[in-house]
């Protein structure tokens, strides 16, 4: 199949050999699970259980609220011991509403309806089941998958792309999943194709995962319309817009969806979860997490219950070989720092990395030498040096005019910068600050509207009062007149 070149990108050292040969291992259930009510983009889930309740594995703990949301289920049987705030798996370290579940050790499932043949269900039933199972995009963005499966209603779609690129260094969870569960993933893919109403699927795997490619090709061999594609190894190949461009040659318009050009992208782990949810009614309560990095004693791929504290994962992998310089949730390019190992694994966590000082490049920043490396590396065709300079001087509007909002925060620019400038860090700041300003602007508009309405109301009340007074006066005058007339009579 003809592939198209994307611009930019980098080739970081892969480090996948640390954990790629380790089969997925089921991690023992921890005693305490911290299950955040917001593990997805959108509104947080609303709890349906109360403190003290006993729950079974797979039981609904919190239901979705609003259009873009996802429910949360119990990862094991046990007792709810708290519903309150707990530190969020987020770089801010702020609290998020969390259900704390004490496992009873029996791991008893709730009664599940028997398996169904997904190919007797229509598109709506499939996406309803996916929504009910609480499935979110498992590549990291955590967007509710059912919403993405409904895109067929709004857009005319022609292709489903399955993202098995796994371009971040160290990560091997998708690789292992493809090697070990190819048939299940392919079943999930076919279910998603049915839900989206597309006849064509491209299964993209980076060429450094030969075994995964072989397993998927074998499983896909007897299904029509599914093509396995080896894509070149280049970061950020797993970015959905860039993957689509590599496969189809079409570029997604700025700030639009890939659905605008007829393509929907789902992650392999999501496909696996869809298979389990639609065929067997299993909610999304566990996921494969890569625990790796030079500082980890025994790097592994673990199937972990959602809510397991990161601390337990690290302990299960033998702890640290040496004191890590950096702890990350996610890959080294786009992952977020872990500031407290008490944070839980959530639906979107794909890796826990403990990197040594040698693995993390921490150099003092130097002035920009205008070499243009960042321009060459940017996969979105932006000029990172210029955008960061404007951001630094507080000209956020200027940064936005140069395409800040099209930046995918992949970090390629900061990776290649010979001056070690924190380029992507500037963009993350600028995006957040611009959103905050938009919020402030919105509030100001609302304030104006409220003030105007109030002024209008006060004027109306005044007028009504004056009119009432006039009427009263007139009535009084009339009365005195008639009284006078009466006296005359």
């Amino acid at each position, binding site marked *: 199949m003809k592939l198209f070149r994307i611009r930019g990108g980098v080739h970081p050292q892969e480090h996948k050999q640390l954990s790629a040969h380790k089969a997925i291992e089921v991690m023992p259930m921890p005693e305490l699970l911290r299950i955040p009510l*917001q593990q997805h983009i959108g509104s947080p889930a609303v709890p349906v259980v109360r403190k003290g309740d006993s729950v079974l594995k797979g039981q609904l703990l919190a239901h979705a609220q609003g259009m873009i949301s996802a429910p949360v289920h119990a990862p094991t049987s046990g007792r709810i011991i708290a519903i309150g705030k707990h530190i*969020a798996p*987020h*770089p*801010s370290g*702020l609290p*998020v509403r969390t259900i704390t579940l004490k496992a009873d050790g029996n791991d008893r499932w709730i009664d599940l309806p028997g398996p169904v043949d997904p190919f007797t269900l229509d598109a709506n039933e499939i996406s309803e089941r996916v929504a009910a199972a609480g499935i979110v995009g498992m590549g990291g963005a955590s967007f509710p998958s059912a919403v993405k499966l409904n895109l067929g209603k709004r857009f005319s779609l022609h292709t489903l792309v399955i993202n098995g690129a796994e371009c971040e260094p160290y990560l091997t969870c998708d690789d292992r999943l493809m090697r070990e569960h190819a048939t299940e993933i392919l079943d999930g893919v076919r279910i998603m194709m049915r839900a989206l109403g597309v006849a064509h699927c491209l299964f993209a795997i980076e060429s450094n995962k030969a075994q995964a490619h072989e397993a998927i090709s074998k499983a896909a061999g007897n299904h029509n319309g599914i093509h396995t594609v080896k894509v070149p190894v280049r970061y950020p190949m797993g970015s959905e817009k860039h993957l689509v461009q590599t496969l189809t040659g079409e570029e997604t318009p700025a700030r639009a969806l890939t659905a605008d050009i007829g393509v929907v992208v789902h992650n392999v782990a999501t496909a696996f979860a869809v298979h389990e949810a639609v065929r067997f009614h299993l909610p999304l309560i566990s996921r494969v997490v890569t625990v790796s990095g030079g500082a980890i004693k025994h790097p592994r791929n673990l199937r972990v219950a959602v809510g397991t504290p990161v601390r337990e994962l690290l302990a299960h992998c033998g702890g640290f070989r040496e004191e890590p310089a950096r702890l990350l949730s996610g890959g080294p390019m786009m992952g977020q720092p872990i500031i407290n190992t008490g944070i839980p694994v959530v639906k979107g966590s794909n890796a826990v990395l403990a990197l040594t000082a040698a693995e993390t490049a921490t150099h*003092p*920043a*130097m*002035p*920009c030498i205008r070499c243009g490396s960042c321009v060459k590396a940017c996969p979105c065709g932006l000029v990172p040096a210029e955008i960061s300079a404007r*951001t*630094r*001087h*507080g*000209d956020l*509007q200027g940064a936005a005019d140069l395409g800040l909002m099209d930046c995918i925060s992949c970090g390629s620019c900061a990776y290649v910068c010979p001056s070690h*400038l*924190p380029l992507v*860090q*500037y963009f*993350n*700041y600028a*995006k*957040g*600050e611009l*959103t*905050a*300003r938009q*919020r*402030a*602007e919105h*509030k*100001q508009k*609302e*304030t*104006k509207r*409220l*003030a*105007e*309405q*109030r002024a209008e109301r006060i004027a109306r009340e005044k007028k009504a009062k004056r009119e009432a007074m006039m009427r009263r006066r007139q009535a009084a005058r009339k009365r005195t007149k008639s009284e006078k007339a009466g006296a005359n009579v």
Partner: protein
Amino acid sequence: MLAAITSLMLLGFALGSLLGLASRYLKVEGNPLQKEIEEMLPGSQCGQCGYPGCAAAAEALANSRAPVTLCPPGGVVLAEALAGKLGVSIDLSTVEEKQPMVAFVNEGLCIGCGRCYKRCPTDALVGGPKQIHVVISDSCTACEKCIDVCPTACIEMRPIPVTLQTWHWPKPSLAYTA
């Protein structure tokens, strides 16, 4: 000679009356810039800038008697917009954004007198007579007008807590000086 005088006189009359008419029908009421600026301001007449209402503040701005950073509820966004409008340059990195605050009614002290909601410029306070009043935090601009009128001093300004939805990465600091 006579022809020259008459023609010049006629010309003078014609042009003079034209000017007179123009000044009557094309008259500019007030400073147009002031009106435009007033439209940009929040219009809540909160008085936090030190001027009695947004119209007075707009007048001061239009006559460049006040800095573009005068409006606390407007914040950086408004300062930037005003600077663009007035053609002045400001260094936004030096503009200290006031920490966002919101009014809070201490329910143990509120006697339900109703003075605060009558003063609130954005109707952010609700309540009935002899009933505890509450603040609709999304509408509150922290103008502190309610604090002044509360007879039991039960209203205070509290900082709006940062949440997961509003948090964003801080600006990276560079060690070197370029």
